C-alpha cells in the first residue's frame, strides 16, 4: 500500500528517520518542519499527513485542535558548548552548577532561537528564570543574559554552532545527542524535562507578539493519528510506544503514553 506519512517536529527527525523507520514494516515518509509550522501547515490544510507529531502539547490546544492526542516522550533543555573554543571551555569548566556565571561575565558567545518564532526560544527564557531560584543568584538571569544579538533562526543557530561561530547554545537534549555535541545537563528543576515538576515550571511565562501568553510546562511530545488505516495505526503505535526514543536523547516517563481526549478503538488498545 502507500506509505504512511508523518509530519513531525524537526527535533524528532533523526529519531523517526533512523529509529522508527527500521522498526516498522510499513513504508513511512517523514517530513519535518519547526513545530509551530507543522501545526500551521496542517491547520491551514496545506499538508494532510496521517500522523502529526509536535514538540509542544500547547500547539494541540491552540493552533491545531485534534480530538485526541498522545503524549509519548519528553525532552529537556541542555547547554551545548563548543569544546574547541575558549568560551565553550569556560562553560564546561563551570559545570552544571555554575554554567550561568561565564554567561553573565559575557566572555561566552551564546546562541538561542527567537522566542517569538520557536518554542525552544521561549523555553530558554523559562530555564533562565527558573535558574534564578534554583541557584539563588543575585542577578536576574532572564534579564541579564539575553541579548537580541544571540537570536538566530534554528537552522542558522545550528550552523553557526557547528562552524564554531558560537561558543554555547541552549538546545534540546535530543539534538545534542543526535549530533554528538558536548553539552551540560541542567538540573531537572530548570530543564523543563520532568512532568512531575509541571507546577514549578508553570510559574514562568512569555507573551507572544500576538498577545498570547505561554506558560512554562514540561517539554512533552504529542502525536495524533489523523487518518486511520491498518498501516497508519501500526506506525502510530510504534511511534508512541517503542523504546527507540531514548537512544536519541529523549526520555519516556513511566506514565507515557498519556492520552488526552478519547482515542479511537484501534489505538491504545
Amino acid at each position, binding site marked *: 500500500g502507500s*506509505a504512511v*506519512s508523518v509530519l513531525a517536529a*524537526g527535533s524528532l*527527525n*533523526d529519531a523517526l*528517520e*533512523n529509529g522508527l523507520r527500521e522498526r516498522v514494516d510499513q513504508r513511512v*515518509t517523514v*517530513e*519535518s518542519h519547526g513545530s509551530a509550522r507543522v501545526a500551521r501547515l496542517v491547520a491551514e*490544510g*496545506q499538508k*494532510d499527513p496521517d500522523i502529526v507529531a509536535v514538540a509542544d502539547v500547547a500547539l494541540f490546544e491552540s493552533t491545531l485542535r485534534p480530538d485526541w492526542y498522545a503524549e509519548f516522550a519528553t525532552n529537556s533543555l541542555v547547554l551545548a558548548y563548543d569544546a574547541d573554543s575558549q568560551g565553550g571551555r569556560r562553560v564546561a569548566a563551570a559545570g552544571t552548577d555554575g554554567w550561568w556565571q561565564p554567561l553573565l561575565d559575557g566572555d561566552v558567545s551564546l546562541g538561542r532561537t527567537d522566542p517569538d518564532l520557536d518554542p525552544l526560544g521561549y523555553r530558554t527564557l523559562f530555564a533562565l528564570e527558573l535558574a534564578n531560584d534554583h541557584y539563588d543568584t543575585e542577578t536576574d538571569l532572564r534579564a541579564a543574559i539575553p541579548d537580541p544579538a544571540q537570536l538566530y533562526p534554528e*537552522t542558522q543557530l*545550528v*550552523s553557526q554552532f*557547528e*562552524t564554531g561561530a558560537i561558543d554555547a547554545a541552549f538546545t534540546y537534549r535530543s539534538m545534542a545527542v*543526535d*549530533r554528538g555535541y558536548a553539552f551540560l545537563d541542567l538540573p531537572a528543576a530548570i530543564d523543563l524535562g520532568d512532568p512531575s515538576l509541571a507546577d514549578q515550571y508553570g510559574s514562568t511565562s512569555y507573551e507572544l507578539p500576538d498577545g498570547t501568553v505561554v506558560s512554562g510546562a514540561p517539554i512533552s511530545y504529542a502525536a495524533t493519528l489523523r487518518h486511520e488505516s491498518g498501516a497508519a495505526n501500526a506506525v502510530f503505535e510504534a511511534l508512541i510506544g517503542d523504546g527507540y526514543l531514548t537512544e536519541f536523547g529523549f526520555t519516556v516517563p513511566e506514565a507515557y503514553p498519556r492520552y488526552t481526549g478519547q482515542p479511537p478503538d484501534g489505538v491504545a488498545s
Partner: protein
Amino acid sequence: MASRAETARGPDWLAVATVLGALLLCYYVLPVLSLVASQPPDVVLSRLDDPDVVGAMTTSVAASGVSTAVGTLFGVPLAYWLARTEGRTETLLTALVVLPLVLPPIVSGMVLLTVVGPDTVLGGFAATGGLPLTRSFAGVVLAQTFVASPFIVVTAKAAFEGVDDQLEAASRSLGKSRATTVRRVTLPIAWPGVLAGVTLGFARAMGEFGATIMLAYYPRTMPVQIWVSFSTAGLSEAFPVAVVLLGVAVVSLVVLNALGT
C-alpha cells in the same frame, strides 16, 4: 603625430574591470571550494553507497530533467510569442513571467498548494486520476517548473528578439509553414541564447528547495536530502551530500551543453 605617446591613459580600466570580475568569481568559488575542500573525497564517495542519497540523486536529475523539458516545451513557445508581441501586452505579460522569481520559493510553494494542493479542485481531480500533484514526482516537477522555467522564458525571449523577423517573413513567403520556419530559421539562429536559458533553468531546478519542500518533500530531491541530513545530523552529514549535488549538477550541465551544441 608625436603627441600620440602622451594620449591620456588615466587609470587602467581594463585592469580595474578584470580585478572586479575576478573578485566576484572568487566570491563564487571560495565558498564552493571551502565546501569541497572540507570534505575528504572518501567521505563524499561513501555517500554514493547510501541508498537515500542515490535515490535523491536520481530524483533530482530526473525531475530537473523533466521540469527543464517542460519549461522548454512550454516556455520556448511563450518566449517566442512574447518576443513577437509588442507594446503594452508584451510589457505586462513579461512582468507576469518575472513574478515567480520575486516570490520567495517557500511562499511560491505555499501559494501553489492553494492551486494544486490535495484539497483543491485541480489537485483533487488529478489525485483521483492517479496522479497526485503533491508529495509525488509530479509535485517536484511542478515546484521546479514554477521556480526555474521563468529563466528559460526570459532568456529565450531575448534570444528570439535578436532574430530579424523579416527572415521569418522570407521563409514563409517561400512556402514554409510557421512551424518549419521557427524550426529551421528562427531557432537555429536564436539557439545559443535559448541554450543559455535552458542551462540556467536546469541549474536553478537542481538547486530548488523551498517550493519543493512545500509541494513535495517526497520523493526527496538532493536539496531536500541535504536538508534532512542537516536536520538529523548537522553540517558534517549535510556537506558531503552537497558536494555530491555539485558533482552531479556539473556533470549534468556539461552533458546538457554537449547535447545542446
